C-alpha cells in the first residue's frame, strides 16, 4: 500500500551529463496514488524502462529523490522496496511446481508453512491457477507463466506496487484479452498501485486510469485515456495515441478559421495569431467522407472489417478519414466533413487554447 512520488528524478547513463541530450530521462515530478493504475507509454528509447528500473531499484537516478509514502527510498536496494514486477518474458523457477513458485517469496521471508499454503491458495484462486497448482511450472503456456510471475508478487501482503514491463509481448492476441481483464480484476480486488510500461497504446489505454506519454526522455502528457484521445497536449501524443494517429496539417490560423493549402476549415473558437510552426490536428475518427464538405482526392480505401479508412489528400497534404458504412465512393473525388469542435490548433507542437 503506497503512494509513489518522483521528486525531480532524472537519469543519464554516461558520466557528467551536460546537455539535455545526455539524459535518458529528463527531470520529472509525478505523484502516483495508491490504488490507481498507471501506464508509461512511448516508443523504444523514450525513457520508460529507465523510469521503471528507477522505481524497482535497478537503476540509481542521477538526480532527484524517490519517495514511497513520503519515505525516501532512493538508496534502498530492490529487495527492501516491497515491489513486485512482471517481466516481458515470463520468469518462473523451472524446477518448482506452480505452488512452489507462488510460495517462494513467502518462504524466503520465513513465513510458516500453514500460512504460506493459505496465501498460495488465495492467490491461485484469484488468478485461476488452482487447477494447475501441483503441475511443474515449466510445462505451462506463456500466459499461465505470466500469471505465475504476477502471482509471486501478489502473494505477499506487504506489496506496495506492482510493476509490469511489457508483460503481454509473448502472448497470442486472443489470450491477451483474457490476461488483460484478469489484470483489471486483480487491480480492482486488491486496491494496489500498478505501473505498466508498454509501447502498445491499446494495452496502455485499456489498462490504466492515467497514462503517462513519454518521448525522448520527457513526459509529454499525463491524462486519462479520454483526455489523451480528445485533447492531446502535444502533436506527438496526437500521433502516438489512436490508430491511425491524428492527422496533422500545416496551416495558417486567423480568428476562427484555419487555412490549409488554400482550403478553409472552420474552427470552434477564436485563436490569437499563433507564433512559430502552426498545424491543425484532427483525428481520423472525426474526419468523414460525406456528401458535402472540402474537396479531397481519394488515394486508397482500406477495408478493416468494422470500419473503412480512406487515405485522401487535401491539396498537397495526406490525411486519413473514415468512410461511413453506407457511403459509396465513386472515382477519386470525394468530400470531407470535419467537425469544427474536433479540430485542434498546435503552435510548435504544443496545443493552443482558444481565446
Amino acid at each position: 500500500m503506497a503512494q509513489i512520488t518522483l521528486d525531480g528524478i532524472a537519469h543519464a547513463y554516461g558520466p557528467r551529463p551536460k546537455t539535455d541530450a545526455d539524459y535518458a530521462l529528463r527531470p520529472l515530478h509525478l505523484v502516483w496514488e495508491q490504488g490507481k493504475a498507471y501506464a508509461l507509454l512511448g516508443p523504444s528509447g523514450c525513457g520508460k524502462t529507465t523510469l521503471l528500473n528507477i522505481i524497482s531499484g535497478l537503476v540509481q537516478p542521477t538526480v532527484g529523490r524517490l519517495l514511497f509514502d513520503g519515505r525516501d527510498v532512493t538508496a534502498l536496494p530492490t529487495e527492501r522496496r516491497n515491489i513486485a514486477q512482471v517481466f516481458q518474458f515470463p520468469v518462473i523457477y523451472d524446477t518448482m511446481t506452480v505452488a512452489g513458485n507462488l510460495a517462494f517469496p513467502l518462504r524466503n521471508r520465513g513465513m510458516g508453512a500453514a500460512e504460506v499454503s493459505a496465501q498460495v491458495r488465495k492467490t491461485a484462486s484469484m488468478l485461476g491457477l488452482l487447477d494447475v497448482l501441483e503441475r511443474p511450472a515449466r510445462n505451462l503456456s506463456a500466459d499461465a507463466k505470466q500469471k505465475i510471475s504476477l502471482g509471486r508478487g501478489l502473494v505477499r501482503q506487504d506489496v506496495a506496487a506492482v510493476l509490469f514491463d511489457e508483460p503481454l509481448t509473448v502472448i497470442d492476441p486472443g489470450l491477451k484479452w483474457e490476461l488483460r481483464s484478469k489484470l483489471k480484476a486483480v487491480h480492482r480486488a486488491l486496491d494496489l498501485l500498478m505501473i505498466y510500461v508498454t509501447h502498445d497504446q491499446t494495452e496502455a489505454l485499456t489498462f490504466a486510469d492515467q497514462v503517462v506519454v513519454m518521448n525522448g526522455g520527457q513526459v509529454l502528457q499525463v491524462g486519462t485515456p479520454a483526455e489523451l484521445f480528445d485533447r492531446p497536449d502535444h502533436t506527438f501524443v496526437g500521433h502516438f495515441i489512436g490508430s491511425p494517429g491524428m492527422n496533422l496539417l500545416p496551416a495558417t490560423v486567423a480568428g476562427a478559421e484555419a487555412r490549409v493549402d488554400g482550403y478553409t476549415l472552420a474552427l470552434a473558437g477564436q485563436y490569437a495569431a499563433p507564433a512559430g510552426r502552426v498545424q491543425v490536428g484532427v483525428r481520423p475518427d472525426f474526419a468523414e467522407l460525406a456528401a458535402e464538405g472540402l474537396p479531397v482526392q481519394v488515394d486508397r480505401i482500406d477495408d478493416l472489417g468494422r470500419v473503412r479508412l480512406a487515405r485522401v489528400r487535401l491539396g498537397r497534404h495526406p490525411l486519413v478519414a473514415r468512410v461511413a458504412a453506407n457511403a459509396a465512393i465513386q472515382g477519386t473525388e470525394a468530400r470531407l466533413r470535419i467537425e469544427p469542435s474536433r479540430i485542434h490548433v498546435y503552435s510548435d507542437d504544443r496545443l493552443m487554447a482558444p481565446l
Partner: protein
Amino acid sequence: MKPRDDRAWLLVLPVFAVVLFSAVLPLMTVVNYSVQDSFGNNQFFWNGMGWFRELLDPTSELGGRFLAALGRNLVFSAVILAIEVPLGILVALCMPRGGWQLAVTMVVMALPLLVPWNVVGTIWQVFARADIGLFGAAVNGLGIDYNYAGNATAAWFTVIVMDVWHWTSLVALLCYAGLRAIPDAYYQAARIDGAGRWAVFRNIELPKLKRVLVIGVLLRFIDSFMIYTEPFVVTGGGPGNSTTFLSIDLVKLALGQFDLGKAAAMSLVYNLMTLLVCWVFFTAMTQLDAAREPTP
C-alpha cells in the same frame, strides 16, 4: 526433378579410407591379438575367449590386476569430479562480469589448458619434489612429511592436485558461459522475491547450468578415465602400483611384458567401458533436451 547423383559417393570416399586405416584396421588387429597367445618370434596360437575369461575373473592374476587398476581409475575420476565440478562452479560464480578484469581472468584460466600434458607432468614432478620443488619443500617445511615418490597417499594427493590445477578452468569456463546465458530478469525477479544468495543459486543458476554441467562432467569423466601422461610422468604408476591406472597398466602389459594377447583383451574391455559411459551420458543429455519445453 529430385536431385540424385551417385558421383557424390566419391566425395565421401576419402573419409572412409582415413577411418579404415586409422580406426578399423588397428581395432581389428587388436581383436585378432585378443583371441591368440604368442611366445615371441611372431608365433601365435589360438586362445579363443581365454584372455577375456581370465581378465574378468578377479581371482586370477590378470583379473586381480585389472580390477585393482579399474578401481583406482573409478576412485580417481570420482574424486576429481567431486572437486572440479563444485570448484569450477564456484570459480565461475566469482568471475568478473566484464571489463579488463574479465580479460585477465580468462587468460589466467586458459593457461593450464594450453600446457601440453607431458609438460604438466614435468612441471608438477619438479614443483612437488620434497628437496628442490617449491610446493614439496614448502609442505615439508610446515612439518608435514610429504614425498610422492615414497608414499602412496602423497602420490595420490599430487596426482589429484595436478589434475585439479590442470582442468578446473575448463569446468569453470563452461559454467561461466552457462551463467552468462541466464537473462537478467531472473536475477531481478529473485531479488524482488527476497531470495538469498543460496536460493538464487539453487533455484535459478543450478537448474540453468544443468546442460553445461552434463557436458562438463562427460568431458572430465572420459578424460580422467583415460588418464595416462601426467601420472606416468610424475609417479610412473608408483610407489608400488598405487597410481597405476588402467592405461598405465595396459602399457606395462603390452610393451613392458609384451603380453600382447592379455593387453589386447584388456584394451577392448576398456574401450567398451568408455563407449558404455558415453552412451549413458548421451542418453541422459537427450532426455534432458526432451524434458525442456519447446522455445518459441
